[in-house]
């Protein structure tokens, strides 16, 4: 079962994301801020990450930087989920190492399809 780390401070949105992922057969490891998510990732590991950008303690970009500079996680697929639709924010997210970027609100089927694309990449990298 693919394990997905979720970092999202909005409790309603976090629970919605957990429901979507678990209904689709994923194991969701959810935390309410970037720092807790980073600590959990180091303790338990994960296969992919879905990160909000605006979070307390450690924002999504900082968390992404930590992921990309840690040998254990640097190749892990990461999808950024955010309300920030500015061009500069999206470019910054990709340049920091995000694999995909979705602006909220988003369609559930497109979200899941994009996660499957990232899963394919995990499988291809293992071949």
């Amino acid at each position, binding site marked *: 079962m693919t394990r997905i780390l979720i970092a999202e401070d909005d409790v309603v949105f976090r629970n919605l994301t957990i429901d979507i992922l678990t209904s689709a057969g994923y194991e969701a490891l959810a935390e309410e801020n970037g720092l807790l998510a980073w600590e959990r990732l180091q303790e338990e590991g994960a296969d992919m990450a879905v990160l909000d950008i605006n979070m307390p303690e450690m924002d999504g970009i900082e968390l992404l930087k930590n992921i990309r500079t840690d040998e254990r996680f640097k190749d892990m697929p990461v999808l950024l989920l955010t309300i920030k639709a500015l061009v500069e924010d*999206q470019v910054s997210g990709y340049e920091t190492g995000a694999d995909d970027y979705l602006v909220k609100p988003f369609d559930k*089927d497109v979200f899941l399809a994009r996660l499957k*694309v990232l899963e394919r990449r995990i499988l291809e990298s293992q071949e």
Partner: protein
Amino acid sequence: MQTFFLGLAGLDEDTGLEWRAALRGQGWQIDFFKTAQEILQAASRSSGGLVLADASCFSPEGPDGLRKVLCAHPKVSVIIVGSQDKLSNQQIAEYLEAGADDFISRNIDHRILVAKLKAHLRRILPSLASLLEVLSSPKGSIRIDGATRTVLIKDPNGRSTQVDNFTPTELSLLKFLLERCGIAVERRMILEHIWREDATQVNLETVDKHVESIRKKLGPFGKNIRTVYGV
């Protein structure tokens, strides 16, 4: 034989020309295709490719048409281009499930288009992505060309300075530091990352020497690499 191709397929002329100009600005050579058949022909001459293809290329079969192309040439990566008033979310999801690596809107900002493609190339072709890499620092941008071992520095005012003759080790070290901009990294970590299995045979002072050499070659920009103590 061309080893890897980047292409635009089935786009209207204006979009095709705009995107080609934006991508050529990154130093990429872009091919144009009209149909899925032309994509297949290019794929058969290459070891792989990346195509931004309008969904119309795969008409009338749609996602099944894409599936056939990818089955014939699994080394080709396809990003579907469309507009969200013509493709429903369900259709977009179907293309992604059929094997498309992304969906982008026809009116995407060029800066996002370039950033997305670089992110994609990082995954599917890391060696190519590293050759074309542009790394940004808070005080401007640095383009590292791995093939010519050249560093092109552009300051925030747009002035460019080219620095030649970096050694491969210096380039790897510079890239390593830029990827961790703002973060203090220990010499031992640098040693293990750059010298890998040879790290135990290299003195820590060697790291200092390489950093000093990089600083000299970067000239005024060299002071952006700072040594901190006691962290």
